[in-house]
């Protein structure tokens, strides 16, 4: 039951993008087309899940026992940066077209606050190993959900007359605000 609550909370009630404001940069940058949104979501899901797992082990077996919990920020971000490098290398070999499509956004996953944010949140919520991994996967799903919904809307927006001053980023934010309002409706679920 605990796990269901973690999942519903991460995907809908406390959606990582629309409620917690993490992962906004790729949200605005990659969401103009559904296809890139899907690719980015997949890459983020992969990195987020493994990052949550590895940072959990790091915190529990190294940082806490040695009393160096203040090194959390540095070690976590280095783990994430290395993971992203790894994903880049693997993707280049396994799926070159996807690698090309993601372009600059792949290394930018390192600076995706969603990944570092989720890793830190898993620690703050004091989840155990399995709960942390479920939390990571659930947040990745929430990120993908928000991203794909958003890109669908933006694809439609690009075919409509938008006032000049609102074109591009501003209208994207306003739409995101409406989407966030919709997600607020999930608030009372649990």
């Amino acid at each position, binding site marked *: 039951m605990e796990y269901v609550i973690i999942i519903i909370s991460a995907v809908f009630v406390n959606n990582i993008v629309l409620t917690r*404001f993490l992962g906004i*940069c790729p949200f605005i940058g990659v969401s103009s087309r559904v296809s890139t949104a899907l690719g980015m979501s997949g890459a983020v899901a992969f990195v987020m899940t493994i990052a949550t797992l590895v940072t959990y082990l790091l915190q529990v077996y190294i940082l806490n026992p040695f009393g160096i919990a203040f090194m959390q920020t540095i070690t976590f971000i280095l783990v994430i940066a290395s993971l992203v490098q790894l994903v880049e290398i693997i993707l280049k070999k396994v799926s070159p077209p996807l690698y090309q499509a993601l372009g600059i956004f792949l290394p930018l996953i390192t600076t*995706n606050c969603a990944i*570092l944010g989720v890793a*830190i949140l898993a620690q703050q919520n004091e989840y155990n190993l399995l709960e942390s991994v479920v939390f990571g996967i659930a947040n990745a799903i929430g990120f993908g959900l928000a991203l794909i919904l958003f890109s669908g809307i933006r694809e439609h927006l690009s075919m409509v007359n938008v006032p000049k*001053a609102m074109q591009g980023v501003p209208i994207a934010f306003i739409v995101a605000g409406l989407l*966030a*309002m919709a997600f607020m409706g999930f608030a009372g679920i649990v």
Partner: protein
Amino acid sequence: MNQWKNFSKGFIRENAVFVLFLGLCPTLGVTSTAINGLGMGLATTFVLFMSNIVVSLIKSLIPNKVRIPTYIVVIASFVTIVELTMQAYLPTLFEQLGLFIPLIVVNCVILGRAEAFASKNNLLTSAIDGLGMGLGFAFALTLLGAVREILGSGSLFGLKFIAGDGILLFILPPGAFLALGYLIVIMNKIKEKTT
């Protein structure tokens, strides 16, 4: 470029938030009040200023292939210093800003300036760039925070000028998106009129 131009570009012409669209997570996440926006902006300015200085000092000692991880360690160190110092001397602000303090390390503004500017310019220019971009970022955050606080709570920097609540939407997540979106629209219109 002369140092005044170097410093002032961070405020309007190349404002991190309104023009470059960088550092958006904290911009939306902590601006429910003006003081939080200001606090986060100043914390980020400190990290940006110090990391630009350090990167500019050691740039010729870093092999090209490890420059990004090195910048990250430098930036993360200053972020941790800010974390610990705030926890010790400004505990209320620390609690308000919460998760977003360690997240300063992934603020694209800081890594971006280290890579694009500090690694290619001398100490003085990099330092002033850091200061200008940082304070410009702080300006953007304080402005957004002020707008959201005035509309959402009917107060500014904690001083209430109406009784009761304002338009609550603005201190909740959707309000952040809406307020920022419309602020950018206003900026765009101003730019249209002045060109």
